């Protein structure tokens, strides 16, 4: 495949963030494209190492063990993701909440962290970002960045490719996708919708992320649970729903899928705040579109 500038299209994929991350670059000579992709993957790897709930030496594991007792210094990336997370929590009145790690552990979507405890009744309001770049919790929490870190990693990778002069790039971390460049990229949506049509988004210069509880739901004490938790009710979001959010940045798209998953049509205002829009599908109502593209951050 050739791109518009006679430079080859270079695409590679590596396993990171619990999924497959693919990076495609157009408009650079092959050797430069590979170096740009190397740099972008290195950044994804950094985000993976810092924000893993599973790895004991990640920033998140250290926060979950110690931040309830004392401030914990974290990498600027972790600090930045938490800053975004608190912004989403505040705007969604707590519907988006990274402190749902406790529920995800209870429902066996995440392993029980070794060391550290989790006090009941905690929320995002207990997370304090300090001016010295450290983080402290007002009570012990188990936070999980699974609903935001992939989007952030995609943004970081995408910005690195831009800095290398890529005229067009597509970064895809398990369906959290950012397209840079004017030429539209067609992205199929795996929504579980009727099979006579294929839902497709044509994107240029923006991001999409999708969520569905359909694939990962499981029975827990007689209840069918999905991996998305409504931060306000602490109950699982509807599992039959498919949600995709389109926004300029992937961290916004990734995070707001969780809000739309839980809140459905009520999430219009939050979408508008972040210049995002959403497509929802469920088998009873079919496709719905929630617009809110003004006020892009």
């Amino acid at each position: 495949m050739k791109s518009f500038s006679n430079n080859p299209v270079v695409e590679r994929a590596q396993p990171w963030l619990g999924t497959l991350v693919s990076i495609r670059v157009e408009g650079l000579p092959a050797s430069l494209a590979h170096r740009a992709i190397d740099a972008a993957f290195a950044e994804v790897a950094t985000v993976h190492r810092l924000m893993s709930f599973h790895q004991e030496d990640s920033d998140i594991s250290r926060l979950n063990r110690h931040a309830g007792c004392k401030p914990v210094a974290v990498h600027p990336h972790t600090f930045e993701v938490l800053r975004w997370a608190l912004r989403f929590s505040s705007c969604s009145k707590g519907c988006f909440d990274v402190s749902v790690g406790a529920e995800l552990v209870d429902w066996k979507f995440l392993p029980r962290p070794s060391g550290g405890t989790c006090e009941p009744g905690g929320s995002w309001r207990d997370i304090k970002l300090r001016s010295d770049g450290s983080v402290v919790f007002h009570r012990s929490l188990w936070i999980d960045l699974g609903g935001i870190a992939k989007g952030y990693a995609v943004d970081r990778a995408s910005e690195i490719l831009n800095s290398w002069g890529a005229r067009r790039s597509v970064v895809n971390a398990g369906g959290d996708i950012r397209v840079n460049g004017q030429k539209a990229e067609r992205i199929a949506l795996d929504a579980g919708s009727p099979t006579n049509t294929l839902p497709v988004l044509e994107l240029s210069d923006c991001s999409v992320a999708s969520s569905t509880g359909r694939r990962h739901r499981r029975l827990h004490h007689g209840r069918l649970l999905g991996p998305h938790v409504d931060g306000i009710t602490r109950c699982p979001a509807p599992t039959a729903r498919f949600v995709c959010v389109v926004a300029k940045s992937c961290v916004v798209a990734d995070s707001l899928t969780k809000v739309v998953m839980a809140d459905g049509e009520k999430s219009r205002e939050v979408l508008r705040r972040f210049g995002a829009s959403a497509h929802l599908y469920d088998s009873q109502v079919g496709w719905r579109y929630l617009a809110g593209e003004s006020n892009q951050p």
Partner: protein
Amino acid sequence: MRAKFLLLPLEAMVVFAGPAFATVYLTIEQAQSVLFPNATFQPRTITLTEEQVKSIERASGVHVLNKQIRVWRVSTGGWFIADEVVGKHEFIPFAVGLDDQGAVKGVEILEYREAYGDQIRNPNWRQQFVGRQPGARLRLEKDIRNISGATLSCKHVTDGVTRLLATYEIVLKQSGR
């Protein structure tokens, strides 16, 4: 920022009924030069003995599917291994670069054949579109290279890497420099 939502009628597409929809990322040679720039590669095919298979399975906790392993000794030090794992539906070929101490230098997926949703991956479902070429507006495989919503697990790939690290410890480390 521009986004357009479309519901494409599938009857209008040409869907090739190959074994899978594949995205080819790198050839083995390309993966070699990505993982070990400016090196040369000496190929070796190693056949694992029953005993080695058992040791690797014990050490890694991962089943060994193939007793033949394709390895290359790297002129600048280290090893390049081409292998594959079984994904949800298809084989996923991948390559691992190990440095001289046996630490992972990098993992590159060579080809991924599960890029579309369950319905589209299903060969019976694909079969219904075979031969419907007239009026085709879109070739799935060529025009749509990404999908959102089908969370792809990479656990099988990370298991494969764990197995190859055990293979290094048990077989390659001794087999010489």
